[in-house]
């Protein structure tokens, strides 16, 4: 257990830039862009002789009926989800390239010989890398995402405060705590969902003699093209759309946040809604996060991912580059 703690620390030290700084810097840039956007809007308004702050938003808000207020709250929640989602995409890219390098870089710079000179089993090492990709990085990304989201809300509140309006009530009329819980609950779901991609990328990382990226991308994409081509020739009954969605995409894109939405029936749910208000209020929540757990696809994918990780572990154990 203690060893695992140190292995995780080691991964964090090596990838501090991607795991820690990348989401923070993206968050800060995002906030600066917001400030810049507001300043630019004000400047444009000034040039057009539009006076800002005449509409008393806070008064409007206070007189909103409860339904409208709930809508506004849901809108605020959506903003938080979206900001966290943007940072989640950045984390997705970080994790993608982390997995590709996880068992390749150490062979390229031969530092694998140093790690193997210590009492560290291959299973523990690979496990620490999988945990870094599926838990550590997403956890840091989620915290950064929530902080950035709250930062966006505060910037808007400060902007209104300059005009003597208090909109804090509105901004926190949503349910930021529920957003936080939903995002945190999404981490294990995303982790399970991401296993085929993590497994595939790490397998390529352990196996490729060079250029793991090309192998990792071109093997599934090439297979997809073959299936599409056979489909075109009508000599195969395997539908190519199914193959692209459930094999190619699962091997390459499952580390990205919310890529499991489809498996949880999210899009069918949307289609079943008939008015805007319903969509807004029920768009996304805890239920949508846990829904994919009911689909066999997430479990089958996780099993396949673990199988690939077992092979990657064996490759790391026995790989002998001469």
């Amino acid at each position, binding site marked *: 257990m203690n060893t695992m703690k140190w292995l995780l620390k080691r991964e964090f030290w090596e990838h501090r830039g991607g795991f820690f700084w990348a989401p923070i810097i993206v968050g800060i840039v995002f906030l600066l862009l917001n400030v810049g956007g507001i300043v630019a809007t004000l400047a444009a308004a000034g040039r057009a002789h539009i006076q800002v702050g005449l509409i008393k938003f806070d008064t409007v808000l206070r007189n909103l009926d409860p339904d409208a207020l709930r809508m506004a709250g849901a809108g605020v929640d959506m903003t938080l989800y979206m900001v966290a989602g943007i940072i989640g995409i950045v984390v997705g890219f970080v994790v993608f390239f982390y997995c590709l390098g996880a068992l390749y870089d150490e062979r390229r710079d031969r530092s694998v010989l140093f790690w193997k*000179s210590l009492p560290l089993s291959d299973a523990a090492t690979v496990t620490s890398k999988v945990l870094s990709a599926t838990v550590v990085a997403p956890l840091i990304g989620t915290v950064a995402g929530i902080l950035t989201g709250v930062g966006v809300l505060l910037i808007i509140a400060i902007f209104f405060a300059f005009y003597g309006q208090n909109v804090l009530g509105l901004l926190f009329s949503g349910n930021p705590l529920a957003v936080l819980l939903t995002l945190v609950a999404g981490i294990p779901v995303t982790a399970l969902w991401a296993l085929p991609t993590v497994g595939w990328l790490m397998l390529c990382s352990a196996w490729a003699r060079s250029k793991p990226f090309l192998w990792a991308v071109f093997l599934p994409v090439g297979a997809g093209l073959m299936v599409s081509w056979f489909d075109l020739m009508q000599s195969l009954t395997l539908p190519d759309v199914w193959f692209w969605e459930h094999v190619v995409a699962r091997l390459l894109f499952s580390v990205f946040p919310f890529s499991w939405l489809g498996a949880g029936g999210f899009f069918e749910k949307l289609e079943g809604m008939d008015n805007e208000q319903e969509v807004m209020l029920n768009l996304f929540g805890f239920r949508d996060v846990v829904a994919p757990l009911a689909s066999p696809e997430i479990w089958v994918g996780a099993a396949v991912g673990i199988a690939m990780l077992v092979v990657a572990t064996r490759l790391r154990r026995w790989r002998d580059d001469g």
Partner: protein
Amino acid sequence: MSTVISARKLSKRYGSTVALNETDFEIQSGRIVGLIGPNGAGKTTALKAMLGLTSFEGELTVLGRDPRTERDALMQDVCFIADVAVLPRWIRVREAVDFVEGVHPRFSRQRCLDFLSHTKLKPDMKVRQMSKGMIVQLHLALVMAIDAKLLVLDEPTLGLDILYRKQFYKDLLEKYFDEEKTIIVTTHQVEEVEHILTDLMFIRDGRVVLSATMDDVSERFAEVMVGPDRVEAARALKPIDERQVFGKSVLLFDGVDRKRLQELGEVRAPGVADLFVATMKGTYA
């Protein structure tokens, strides 16, 4: 004294190349063994097999364990420096010390810091900022602070200047080695290690061709410097090697009676390098 490593019919091929060819050898505890052979003779493969880094055929036990199936347990007691500069380039001195302390039950932080205090390494320094010599110093500090039963060094001083090389072996001998430990070292710089070795193993074409203690070696082999008048007489005793120095001939003998040699000229113990050259004659032919 007990047997640390024992190999029976140890074989390994890479495709059509035979790296180890049904070789047998044993290594006892408390020894410093020099594993010496020409390029491609199978030194590194033999070490890799001992460390469980490669598959092999035949029998091999290290500290009573099979390195293929019991590697994880074995690494509690075995440490190695595979090559210079295999420390990860991103790691800091401080992080490396913390990490090894965290994962190795036999690591002594105090010993490591003591050793580092005699170098120019600073806790915040990253490996990528270090010279090759400094990287080896860090690696050695980490390894010497581990109380391992077996330490394997594969070309540990390759590419280092003479100051670092001398210091390396001095530290190894004075600060690390004791009768509980066993060290196996391979190197091409034979002259620099021969005075610290207790045992010699020559490997050629995948087989251990000579395995003896240094005492045995100096008893068995002798070098005689003879003038031109006695060369024919000396050659009759079947020397294993002959070279010319200042118009005289230096002949190397294996297991020839010392008294007879003394009649021919001045008898000396041969250097390991000369012995090596004589034993490996024709390797690249």
